[in-house]
């Protein structure tokens, strides 16, 4: 790789990718924990069908997911129209769109892992905590979640990796606008499409190295053991 190649490399997509992936992971984590808990602990008739519906972002091509988000939140949708008229804001072509798209695509990973983890917990530990005067929320935060954490963490790391790699849905919603909404994955895609193989390789190496570093660090510092 020549030094001109390094010149061609631009830190923006990297920073944007990390920002988007981090936010999307947080959103997926919160929603995934809540829904995973719900489906594990408060099943209702048909809840396994509803749970499977949340898996669809994995089943359908990302473009379809992106298109669905466009239809649901774009300027032509009632929601998007209202927001646009009142706040002069649209999620299309904004990096927020990439966050939403990545979160939707990453959600099933957290949800399913959290669900399995919550279902496997020894309920008598929760009972013990409740006899020790803890509120439901306190029991959840201090006992349930820590005990389920290995599974939830696994799902979260998967979600982060997926969010880093997401580009089909984001491309649709946020566009691939250099210095605005172009993430690393989009930049890689662009580089391959433009025949800039060296740049593509460089970007792949950077993305891989940084993702591995983050995953290893999270594994080490978030595993609580």
């Amino acid at each position, binding site marked *: 790789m020549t030094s001109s190649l390094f010149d061609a490399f631009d830190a923006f997509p990297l920073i944007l990718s990390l920002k988007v992936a981090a936010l999307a992971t947080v959103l997926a984590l919160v929603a995934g924990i809540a829904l995973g808990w719900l489906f594990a602990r408060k099943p209702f008739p048909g809840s396994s069908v509803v749970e499977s519906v949340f898996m669809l972002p994995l089943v359908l091509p990302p473009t379809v997911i992106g298109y669905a988000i466009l239809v649901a939140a774009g300027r032509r949708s009632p929601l998007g129209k209202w927001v646009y008229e009142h706040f002069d804001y649209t999620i299309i072509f904004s990096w927020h769109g990439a966050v939403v798209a990545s979160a939707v695509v990453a959600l099933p990973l957290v949800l399913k892992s959290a669900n399995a983890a919550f279902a496997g917990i020894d309920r008598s530990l929760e009972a013990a905590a409740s006899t020790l005067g803890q509120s439901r929320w306190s029991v959840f935060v201090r006992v349930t979640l820590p*005990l389920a954490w290995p599974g939830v963490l696994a799902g979260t790391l998967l979600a982060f990796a997926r969010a880093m790699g997401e580009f089909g849905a984001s491309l649709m919603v946020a566009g691939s606008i250099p210095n605005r909404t172009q993430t690393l994955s989009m930049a890689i895609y662009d580089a391959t499409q433009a025949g800039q193989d060296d740049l593509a390789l460089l970007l792949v190496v950077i993305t891989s190295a940084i993702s591995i570093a983050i995953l290893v660090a999270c594994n080490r510092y978030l595993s609580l053991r």
Partner: protein
Amino acid sequence: MIDVDIELTVRDGARRFDLGVRFATEAPFAALYGPSGSGKSLTLQAIAGLLKPRAGHVRLDGRTLFDAARGIDLAPRERGVGYLFQHYALFPHLSVRQNIGFGLTTWRRRRLTPAQQARVDSLIERFGLSAMADSRPGVLSGGQQQRVALARALVREPSALLLDEPFAALNPMLRGALRRELAEVVRQARIPALMITHDIDDVLELADVAFVYQDGQVVRDVDLRKGESRDHARRALGDERPVESPMRQKLRHLLNDGPAAG
């Protein structure tokens, strides 16, 4: 002080177990005694609010914790009882110290006040857990785990104690010491205690009254204080069982205290 009258059924496939117990006592320390699977643990769970009876009531020191007829059913955390679980139910992700202090803190306030800290430390000390205060329960011996569970149940100054075989994993010497600790706690705090045990000596040493279980029912209660006065019964029963032979006593001594002299 304790007034329990509950009916409940647990099911597991085709098998079902019906619990229908009723007992009440003014005595501060009551024991539940009876065969394996007779419903003793289920009774404590119902009192703690972990199982919901179909009918009946649970009252402690005049407070109604549960009353099916009046629609009262306090959540476990509102019942303020200290519960030692038969299988300890120690939090595997917390250290011994954190397990013991658990009930004093909440998700919001996780630091102990100096007074609470002192209380935790004194329990750790009294139950001989100082050396392993920072270990996780998983690496403790059976008896060490049981003592952690006992300390954890006592730490909140509960309004009643429910103890499911608190000394089963302890050897007689420690058992004696902890019996004295427990008797002291119950006496000082003036709280009622309900203890399941398989050890008659536990009953004899600690309890004022014992309720004998059989197949989900209380079939008999034994007043252990009154017994003392009924002197004629003493002699009447005296020869029904052989007094402990000196041989056995000697062996008992050998096991507990040291080599036999000659």
